[in-house]
């Protein structure tokens, strides 16, 4: 994989080809920024952050929680699920993660993310959201 840390969520697929991800709405530079933000958030907090971008079943909050459950350690994980088609954003925090990121702060991050998404800037929304959540979780915000 060219970007190393990108996974396509098709479980039946063979290991992701870089071309699959590059076919998406992101340029290589944007993918690198997202990757960098994810790594920084993980390092700062010790939590596992992940970002899903794609369609979600209705109700989207249930679908996002279902995805969150699929992570290796859901209690210590934070999932940001974005569905550009449905124009929906879901932030899901696991049990321990929710103690460090209160729902009020998650809602604040969600608001700034949706502002970027409304302007058509997926990358900036994701990167800013990750930074806000990580700042909150590490106690520096």
């Amino acid at each position, binding site marked *: 994989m060219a970007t190393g*840390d990108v*996974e*396509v*969520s*098709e*479980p039946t697929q063979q290991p992701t080809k870089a071309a699959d*991800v590059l*076919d*998406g*709405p992101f340029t290589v530079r944007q993918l690198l920024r*997202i*990757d960098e933000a*994810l*790594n920084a958030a993980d390092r700062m907090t010790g939590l596992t952050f*992940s*970002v*899903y971008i*794609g*369609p*979600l*079943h209705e109700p*989207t909050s*249930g*679908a*996002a*929680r*279902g*995805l*969150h*459950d*699929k*992570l*290796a350690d*859901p*209690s210590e994980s934070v999932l940001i699920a974005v569905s*550009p*088609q*449905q*124009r*929906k*954003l*879901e*932030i*899901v*925090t*696991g*049990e321990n*993660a*929710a103690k460090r990121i209160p*729902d009020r702060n*998650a*809602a604040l991050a*969600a*608001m700034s993310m*949706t502002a970027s*998404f*409304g*302007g*058509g800037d*997926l990358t900036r929304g994701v990167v800013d959201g990750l930074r806000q959540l990580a700042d909150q979780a590490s106690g520096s915000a």
Partner: protein
Amino acid sequence: MTVIQTALVFVGIPVAVFLVVAGMVYGGSARAARRYRPGRDYDFAPVWFLARPEEVSVAGAADYVASGGEGDEPKALESGPSMTRTGVKGGASGNW
């Protein structure tokens, strides 16, 4: 200057400049079209980013991901043990 030289300078150069600018405008749009624009259809493959992909198990994740196929009724989520496997969850929602 002959007539031909005059035509080359006063017609040929402007036409060349026009073609270069037109090429830059339309050549760039092919890439720019492949981005998300609010209100337009988004039909890219779903992606899931993780800092350490080896730590995730995505088996069964497809149950929660709406397929892009048209006329495909999204199946309702069963509220089973899988939904409550990890206890209380927090978070927030938004739309735009």
